């Protein structure tokens, strides 16, 4: 056995939303995502903890589970692991049962079930600070005596908040030297696998555990029924049948207005910086291939995508605050009925909302949906939620073609159009879900069973970490995949070099120009010229690339050097309004994102659904763009 495998294995197990991942981050120094709703973690995550004695402990963060009888794919992961059903993974040496100190009644039942499995269990009494503030005097030592298990207090969201747990693990379970075997705790008391499975499946024990929990809470003086909490008072407004939907609508609307309005000064600054760089490079280097690569490929391509960083930061700031506050499950509550009318449940809301960032985590988050059919439909429609990669495309086109004027007090037309595009995506998703319901039939019973967690004031630290991560991801994307694609596209657009005396721009003679002309046969009926057609191709790998690709293609098509690096004025001259609107409509349904298709393949275990996804989205996008193009030409005239 290798040294790494001999290191003790600690698993964090508990009900959803009790702070397992926050503790995991504290123990291992990781920065996994945390938020205030059930089902943030849907995969197992492994990290390492170095003890002061120099040993190592493997720490596993597992998805939350309400019991050891799994109902959803994410719970299955946790149960399989705890029960030792995975062939190539040993059962954990120690189970850290994480409990929410403000809600012992539910969380302790799982602790009792874990205890019966016979493995060493240590209880991490999390959120003790919140519990104390709410007047719940929890005596950890007394709780430990009643449970017959060691109990340590933790505060997952505070630096050093896992100190007591860390010390306990070091003292009791760490190997004395790196590589040597840990105390043989797991060998002696753990029940066999078959026994474990039957213990986990025993339904009668739930009621018995409930009585035991009542007894313990009674002994500790914690058996009172909580009075009206601040959360309840907020919920009376937020969940109000009339005020609730209104608040939700206004929040979403303001979000898109702000994304557009607040980002403008920052975007202009970045644009100016890139233009200055392009001018500098243009002046410093002689006209030629190297100058063209840097100006047309790197700056006009990757640079024009980087401009959208402020908007993406703003969008994520809003999403992170909503996630951290506990509002998201409320939004799901308000929309449940609407989702029910197309055969889904509110459980699909959070995966769909995550898809506004990117469809890939959205598709993963669908693991929290208990119903298999609902899960597939959610995965199929997730890419219709406008992901942040499409934001640059929308912004470029809206900023260029929609006049910046107000249509009401504080309501900008550009922000309104952006909101409408997002709404069109959501509307399309509902229509597809409805159609699938009609075609395949829906199950009669759709359980919701969604936890509405206590509201928290969003943590600035958490927001900061989340934003820094998003900026890193975006800049890395621009610096790697987008830059590489742009250089490749520049290459294809520059070679073969047109012979001297070639009439028209040299790019028409290049590989990309010829490929574009071929594709234009397909796309001309919906108003796309060959430059757009060619830009759509690298957009399959990363959608933001479309913006950069247009930058490169038009920059190379332009005759003068003065316009380099500025996409907007180029397309403003080259396109009719109808073409711009058609491209916007295309991107509402924008199909063909390779990473999304791969994620759908992995999560559904078949190519059937990704193929269906790509096909229906292509059809929808083509139809929507064509309809928009011809209707707007008829309306506006073929200008």
């Amino acid at each position: 056995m290798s040294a790494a495998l001999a290191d003790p294995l600690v698993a964090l197990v508990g009900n959803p939303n009790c702070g397992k991942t926050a503790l995991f981050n504290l123990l291992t120094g990781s920065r996994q995502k945390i938020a205030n709703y059930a089902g943030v973690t849907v995969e197992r995550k492994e990290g390492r903890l170095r003890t002061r004695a120099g040993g190592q402990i493997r720490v596993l963060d597992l998805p939350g589970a309400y019991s050891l009888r799994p109902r959803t794919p994410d719970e299955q992961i946790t149960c399989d692991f705890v029960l030792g059903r995975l062939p190539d993974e040993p059962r954990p040496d120690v189970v850290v049962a994480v409990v929410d100190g403000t809600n012992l009644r539910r969380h302790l039942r799982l602790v009792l079930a874990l205890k019966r499995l016979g493995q060493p269990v240590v209880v991490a009494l999390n959120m003790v600070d919140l519990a104390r503030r709410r007047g719940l005097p929890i005596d950890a030592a007394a709780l430990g005596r009643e449970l017959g298990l060691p109990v340590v207090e933790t505060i997952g969201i505070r630096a050093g908040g896992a100190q007591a747990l860390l010390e306990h693990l070091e003292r009791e379970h760490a190997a004395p030297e790196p590589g040597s075997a840990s105390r043989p705790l797991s060998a002696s008391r753990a029940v066999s696998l078959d026994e474990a499975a039957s213990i986990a499946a025993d339904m009668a024990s739930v009621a018995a555990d409930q009585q035991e929990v009542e007894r313990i809470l009674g002994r500790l003086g914690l058996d009172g029924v909580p009075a009206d909490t601040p959360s309840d008072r907020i919920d009376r407004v937020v969940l109000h049948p009339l005020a609730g939907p209104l608040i939700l609508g206004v929040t979403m609307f303001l979000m898109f207005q702000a994304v557009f309005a607040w980002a403008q000064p920052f975007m202009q600054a970045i644009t100016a910086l890139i233009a200055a760089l392009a001018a500098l490079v243009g002046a410093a280097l002689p006209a030629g291939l190297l100058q063209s690569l840097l100006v047309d490929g790197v700056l006009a391509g990757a640079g024009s995508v980087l401009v959208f960083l402020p908007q993406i930061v703003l969008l994520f700031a809003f999403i992170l605050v909503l996630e951290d506050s506990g509002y998201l499950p409320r939004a799901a509550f308000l929309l449940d009925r609407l989702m029910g009318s197309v055969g889904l449940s509110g459980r699909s809301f959070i995966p769909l909302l995550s898809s506004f960032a990117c469809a890939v985590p959205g598709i993963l988050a669908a693991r929290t949906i208990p119903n298999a059919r609902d899960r597939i439909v959610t995965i199929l429609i997730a890419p219709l939620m406008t992901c942040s990669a499409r934001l640059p495309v929308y912004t470029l086109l809206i900023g260029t073609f929609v006049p910046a004027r107000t249509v009401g007090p504080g309501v900008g037309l550009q922000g309104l159009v952006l909101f409408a595009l997002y709404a069109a995506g959501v509307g399309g998703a509902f229509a597809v879900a409805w159609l699938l319901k009609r075609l395949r039939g829906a199950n009669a019973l759709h359980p919701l069973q969604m936890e509405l967690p206590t509201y928290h004031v969003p943590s600035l630290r958490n927001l900061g970490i989340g934003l820094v991560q998003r900026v890193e991801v975006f800049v890395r994307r621009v610096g790697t995949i987008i830059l590489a694609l742009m250089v490749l596209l520049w290459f294809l657009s520059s070679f073969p070099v047109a012979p001297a005396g070639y009439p028209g721009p040299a790019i028409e003679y290049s590989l990309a120009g010829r490929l574009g002309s071929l594709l234009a046969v397909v796309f001309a009926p919906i108003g796309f010229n060959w430059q757009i057609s060619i830009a759509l191709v690298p957009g399959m790998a990363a959608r933001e690339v479309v913006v950069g690709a247009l930058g490169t293609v038009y920059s190379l098509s332009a005759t003068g050097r003065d316009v380099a690096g500025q996409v907007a004025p180029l397309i403003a001259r080259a396109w009719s309004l109808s073409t711009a609107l058609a491209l916007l409509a295309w991107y509402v349904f924008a199909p063909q994102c390779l990473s999304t298709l791969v994620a759908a393949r992995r999560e559904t275990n078949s190519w059937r659904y990704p193929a269906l996804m790509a096909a229906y989205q292509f059809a929808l996008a083509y139809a929507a763009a064509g309809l928009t193009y011809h209707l707007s030409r008829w309306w506006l005239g073929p200008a």
Partner: protein
Amino acid sequence: MGREAADMAERLAEIGFLPGERVRLLARALFGEPLAVRVGSDTFALRRAEAACVRVVRVEPDEDGRR
């Protein structure tokens, strides 16, 4: 009770809808569904079909202790 309804009832028990627990209806969405239900110190959103799996008796608001 069908298999799905039985499954639903089991799940409800696991999240805390157990004999003797106090439940309180906190909110009801437009058109009567879903419901926000307090059980123990938790709030769960349930659809009507789920809530129908829970048998309740009315207790007076000021009456302390459990049924």
